[in-house]
């Protein structure tokens, strides 16, 4: 990997600013490996829950112009098997791993944290925002700044790893939630999770395309929403942001950084550009730096902080 792509994130030196986000090509140690081999600098596990989950029945993905709906339903092998995969990955790779976990209450988050403490993971990410389990769990945690604060505060007390809060875009006031996370001790923010949710209908069969009816939006079309929320948040917090949502090319990644992201997630774009997307974007970032006279990522300016 090119030296000019090196960056620091929470004390780790990473060889590329590109992150494999939670839930995308990360169910097994080998899935994590292939992203790193293709240029990702950090990888995130699927959001793990205490018990295994088979997820929603299919169809679980649906394409539309500009993106995808998904309602995977947090399928995962459970924290024990999930961490085993992560440990197996870490035996083969020194790429930092973010362990994503999902729960609906403080107690379960604490139990998950204890498991993660025993693993070889490098960061703990709290998925506070999964919109695909509304039915089951009600309003997402990430919509309540008090809940967010409470959970992070509790987790931070026992976590041996830096804690990242993954925020939902589907809230009125992202800044107050981000600040709640920061003041509770979160070491970084990850934003955004999927947008919406949305729905599509099969007009011949008069049925929702997704069996779960609703799915979160990801892919290129959510980029403007991600940029807005990241920019807004960056102006008001002092912890680093993992920016994601619709990044598909080098310019998109640069946009994220200018909006305030320290490192950048690339998820759905794997569909559009293949698993090689990480290296492609790495190269495009270097081209951008060449064309615009930046020596390294640290020189890439942030957008002026402005009132929204």
């Amino acid at each position, binding site marked *: 990997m090119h030296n000019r792509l090196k960056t620091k994130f929470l004390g780790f030196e990473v060889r590329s600013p590109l992150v494999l986000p939670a839930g995308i090509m990360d169910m097994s140690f080998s899935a994590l490996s*292939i992203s790193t081999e293709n240029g990702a600098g950090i990888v995130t596990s699927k959001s793990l829950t205490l018990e295994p989950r088979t997820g929603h029945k299919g169809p679980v993905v649906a394409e539309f112009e500009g993106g995808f709906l998904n309602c995977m339903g947090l399928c995962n092998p459970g924290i024990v098997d999930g961490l085993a995969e992560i440990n197996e990955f870490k035996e083969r790779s020194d790429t930092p791993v973010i362990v994503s976990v999902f729960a609906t209450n403080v107690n379960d988050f604490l139990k998950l944290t204890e498991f993660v403490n025993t693993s070889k993971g490098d960061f703990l990410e709290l998925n506070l925002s999964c919109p695909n389990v509304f039915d089951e769990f009600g309003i997402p945690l990430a919509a309540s700044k008090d809940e967010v604060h409470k959970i992070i505060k509790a987790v931070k007390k026992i976590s041996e790893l830096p804690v990242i809060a993954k925020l939902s875009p589907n809230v009125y006031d992202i800044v107050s939630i981000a600040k709640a996370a920061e003041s509770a001790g979160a070491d970084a923010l990850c934003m955004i999770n999927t947008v919406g949710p949305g729905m599509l209908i099969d007009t011949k069969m008069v049925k929702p395309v997704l069996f779960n009816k609703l799915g979160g939006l990801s892919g290129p079309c959510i980029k403007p929403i991600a940029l807005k929320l990241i920019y807004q948040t960056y102006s008001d917090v002092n912890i680093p942001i993992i920016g994601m949502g619709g990044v598909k090319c080098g310019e998109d990644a640069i946009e994220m950084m200018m909006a305030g992201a320290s490192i950048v997630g690339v998820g759905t774009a794997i569909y559009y550009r293949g698993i090689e997307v990480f290296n492609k974007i790495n190269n495009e970032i270097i081209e951008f730096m060449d064309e615009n006279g930046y020596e390294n990522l640290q020189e890439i300016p942030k957008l002026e902080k402005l009132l929204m």
Partner: protein
Amino acid sequence: MNKRITLKIAKIKDEIKDIKTFSFKYKLNAKPGQFIMLTDFEGGEKPFSISDCTKDEFSITIKKIGEFTSRLFQKDVGDLVSIRGAFGSSFFISNGKVLLVGGGYAVPTFYFFSKILLESGANITLINGARTKDELLFVEKFGKLGINLINTTDDGTFGEKGTSVDIARKLLVSKLQQNQLVSKPQLGDNSRFHPATAGWKRENVDKFDFIYASGPEMMMKALQGVIGEIEYEFLFERYMKCAIGICGSCTVDPLGIRLCVEGPVLPKKIVEQLTEFGKYHRDASGKRILY
């Protein structure tokens, strides 16, 4: 190609007990070995290999296994279902002398493949295996193709007696020995092998350029043991959800390649590296399930 299309079932054919072929009038443009995702929007979207594909029609041949396939078996001609695809990699189209080894519901994809192979001038030997006569698939359809068809049953109730791999071993090991290859496959019991009764001509099977397999994973694992140095491709099945390469359900260890994109057809050089081959696969949650 991820466009969704909702189609009427144009034809349903009972093949054998619990296996039916569903045909659709639609220009799918699939390549042999590829699969589609099928749903009725009632819960479940599942991968099925394409068993035939002409200019304006395609078929899939389905075994009733669980909830989804059982519901499918209740559908009638004219009912609607919805598909995405075709997805995935396809078989290399050889024009040489090829051996196709198939078992169970995974055999019919070789019907589509054989037609394409014949167009390219390949010389085809197909081992069509099942446990017993009633489970043999596509005997007539394969028969009409004019290929070297070796039907075989474990219990000998039809065609050869023995597993597909037993037959393959006979064909390949003699050849291997002829070529004095280094690899020493375990021969096992060859006594069930009666070339005379097979309607297949000894002289045709001397030297294969390419071997293809589609069937239960343990069959392919055993077959791998008798192939030696010949090039091959195997069709794999893993739990699939998105079929577009993002969810990660279908990746195989230790390479992390996705069977819905880089597979389901994998070439020898990849298969040889798979540590999970014949050992385990993953369920809908991603948990490993031992074979």
